[in-house]
């Protein structure tokens, strides 16, 4: 294969499934592409990898906000070609509580201690969700996401704003239940069924410019992976193994994300995407307002 | 199962009955055995150290003099045998010890005066008592160097002087002196020698003195213990009974000269054997 090596960074979570499937099913090879998956320990690292020219693209699951921050630092670097929206149906974000918790709605967490993943992005989202959900006066405690179920089970926290598969794990071992899923969609975007474009697959502009043909082929092959996941979700689940920590019975239980290719975006979707970015600009996480339009791959 | 016919019979060598030393024995050593690296240093060694006497130990380098005192003082474990203190246990006996390696025996984190006072503090003496005793010692030793300095700021001889003062401070019942004069200058040697005699005459402290200077050894001794080369045995125990206080005149007394001559002969016979 004479083509350039395409280094794709991924964060080992379920949302990257189309990419994992496309690699395993040989879609990239079929297209004559030489794709090298690179595992990073966080979305942040994937984005920095692309910035420092150690990766040419990212798989789904890489935080859109992380990519955006890179884009603000180096405008014009990233092109999003596929995003994975979540909402009350395609669950990613959720608030969970101990199985025996009396809380019925978000507002019941008023004045309680609520966990969130560490770092300013998670905390901002958690605070916004709690506030708008009526749980005023709740204390947000930063805690690694892997510790959320444990902290709830041990009674150290009253609830957690967390991401899948945490809710599923807690449900399966009977210690926690989901209080509300798709909370960002509901409280930030204003509609439980609105798409929150939390994660995105992207390529660097530099790569697209240098290898326009390969970029096209790559996106097409990636789209095949997306289509596969959409049509045969249960069959696709097996490819989580080896790419993520998910294995065993959990594989069949974790909710799958929805996917939206660049050419499927409708103006309403872009507006929802923009709304998410605007929250972060408003909260000062983005140092300036960033327009989603400019970041979307145009084909 | 095959019965073993005519199996060899193992019999333990019967332990010899304990033989107490003569009356007035302070330290009784019986059947002392000590090996180093598989070689015997002492094997079944017996010795009685008399009470209220000075015993000078004289023997060639490496014959085990330091090791012997260390074993008596309980600092090195013995392989087998017994060491008994008259009436009391080792723990209840107040011991003074001047180490051959006096440099490593001082505590560099204390000023020299505190080093000297240390055994008194151990004995729970009050500040006043300690101060009184220190003043006494300093006056009696006529110390000319600054005891407020740390030991590592002292010359070899000064450290050894301090080491001797420390050993004498608590008025010990038994005093072990391992080459206490080795780093002292001419005057100081004479001076400390007299001091030791003075202390002895006042208190009757049992002393065990290792010295390579025969004159010193005999001059101070009630008994000269001559040791052989390794594996070490008692070559001879020579009594020397000239009256105390012994003085410079003693050194020219025929009894002194003959005791010294005899010791030397035995020593040389043993070393050259």
């Amino acid at each position, binding site marked *: 294969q004479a083509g350039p090596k395409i280094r794709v960074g991924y964060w080992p979570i379920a949302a990257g499934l189309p990419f994992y499937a496309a690699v395993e099913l040989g879609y990239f090879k079929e297209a004559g592409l030489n794709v090298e998956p690179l595992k990073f320990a966080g979305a942040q690292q994937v984005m920095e990898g692309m910035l*420092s020219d150690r990766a040419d693209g990212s798989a789904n699951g890489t935080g859109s906000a992380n990519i955006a921050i890179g884009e603000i630092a180096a405008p014009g670097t990233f092109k999003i070609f596929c995003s994975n929206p979540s909402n009350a149906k395609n669950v990613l974000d959720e608030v969970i509580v101990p199985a025996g918790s009396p809380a019925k709605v978000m507002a019941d967490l008023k004045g309680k201690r609520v966990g969130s993943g*560490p770092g300013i992005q998670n905390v901002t989202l958690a605070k916004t969700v709690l506030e708008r959900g009526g749980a005023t006066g709740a204390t947000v405690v930063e805690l690694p996401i892997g510790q959320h179920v444990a902290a709830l089970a041990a009674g*150290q926290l009253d609830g957690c704003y967390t991401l899948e598969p945490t809710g599923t794990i807690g449900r399966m071992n009977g210690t926690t239940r989901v209080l509300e899923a798709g909370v960002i969609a509901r409280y930030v975007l204003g509609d439980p069924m609105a798409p929150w474009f939390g994660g995105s697959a992207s390529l660097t502009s530099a790569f697209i410019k240098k290898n326009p043909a390969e970029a096209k082929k790559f996106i097409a092959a990636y789209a095949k992976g997306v289509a596969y996941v959409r049509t045969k979700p249960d069959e696709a689940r097996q490819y989580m193994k080896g790419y993520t920590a998910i294995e065993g019975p959990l594989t069949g239980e974790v909710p799958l994300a929805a996917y939206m290719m660049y050419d499927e975006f409708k103006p309403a979707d872009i507006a929802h995407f923009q709304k998410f970015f605007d929250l972060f600009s408003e909260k000062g996480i983005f140092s300036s307002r960033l327009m989603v339009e400019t970041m979307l791959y145009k084909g | 199962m095959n019965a073993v016919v005519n199996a060899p019979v193992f019999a333990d060598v019967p332990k010899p009955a304990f033989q107490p030393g003569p009356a007035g024995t302070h330290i009784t050593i019986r059947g002392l055995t000590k090996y180093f690296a598989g070689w015997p240093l002492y094997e079944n060694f017996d010795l009685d150290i008399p009470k209220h006497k000075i015993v000078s130990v004289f023997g060639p380098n490496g014959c085990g003099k330091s090791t012997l005192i260390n074993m008596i003082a309980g600092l090195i474990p013995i392989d087998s045998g017994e060491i008994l203190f008259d009436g009391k246990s080792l723990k209840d006996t107040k011991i003074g010890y001047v180490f051959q*390696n006096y440099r*490593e025996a001082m*505590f560099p984190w204390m000023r020299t005066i505190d080093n000297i006072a240390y055994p008194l503090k151990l004995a729970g003496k009050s500040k006043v008592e300690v101060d009184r005793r*220190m003043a006494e010692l300093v006056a009696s030793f006529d110390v000319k160097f600054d005891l407020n300095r*740390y030991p590592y700021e002292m010359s070899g001889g000064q450290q050894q002087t301090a080491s001797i003062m420390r050993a004498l401070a608590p008025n010990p019942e038994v005093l072990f002196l391992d080459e206490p004069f080795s780093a002292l200058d001419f005057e100081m040697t004479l001076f400390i020698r007299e001091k030791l005699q003075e202390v002895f005459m006042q208190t009757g402290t049992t002393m065990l003195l290792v010295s390579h200077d025969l004159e010193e050894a005999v001059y101070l001794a009630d008994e000269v213990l001559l040791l052989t080369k390794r594996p070490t045995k008692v070559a001879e125990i020579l009594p020397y009974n000239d009256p105390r206080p012994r003085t410079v005149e003693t050194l020219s007394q025929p009894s002194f000269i003959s005791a010294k001559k005899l010791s030397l002969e035995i020593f040389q016979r043993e070393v050259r054997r």
Partner: protein
Amino acid sequence: MAATSPAAKPWTPPAAQASAKVPREPAWNKALPFIGPVVLFILWDLAVRTGMIKALLLPPPLDALGALVKGLWGGPLLGDFLMTVWRTLQAFLIAAIVGMPLGVLLGSNEKAYRSVEFLIDFFRSTPSSALIPLFLMIFGVSDVNKVAIAAFGAFLIVVFNSAYGVINARKQRVMAARVMGATRWQVFKDVLIWESLQPSFVGLRSAVSMALVIVIVAEMFIGADSGLGNRIINSQQVMNVRDMYASILAAGALGYALNILFLMLERKIVHWSGR
């Protein structure tokens, strides 16, 4: 000890004249400690200037320094800095006060040390980030947690170094004390503690750095709402590299300062070192 003074000072030293003759340290010796940071900054600057590393990811050193100075000079960095200092000190003090005597004690009885050696080496070799879940279980999600985990990590190092300080020390002084009738306790407090002071100080210095490292790791990964670790992870998330490296600089400089403090303490206390 007044009685000893006249004997101890047989003549008066001409002190003024004397001190004039004592050779002085050349002035440039004082500049030595600055060579390290200067070299670091030059290399760093070169790496950024030549574009080896993008300024986007690693700010020029002067920028980071500027952010550091501005942040510390009443800026928001100051509060986080002080928080980290406070947590580190708490953790370190617990570790030192419990660990040093315990280490010396264990070292003075090799059998006792052998019987706990497994635990010490075991936990020394387990990353604190892997133990976070355990500590979360025991101490909850409170602030105590961060101090506890750092104290534990530092404690292990103090015990290890103090114990080996005693185990490796020469035995002659212990023998001297024993023969003077010192009890085990007296040998412990008058000899062993002192004899092990020097290696203990090496241990204390390792421990203070370790405490700082774990506090920051805990602030980063357990999550906290203050402290340098929190600052580092937050600026990392928003790619504010200037602030991030300013915080890292603050952490490192804090570590250096604490080390120098202990070095000076050691020089003062262990005056017999090397003699």
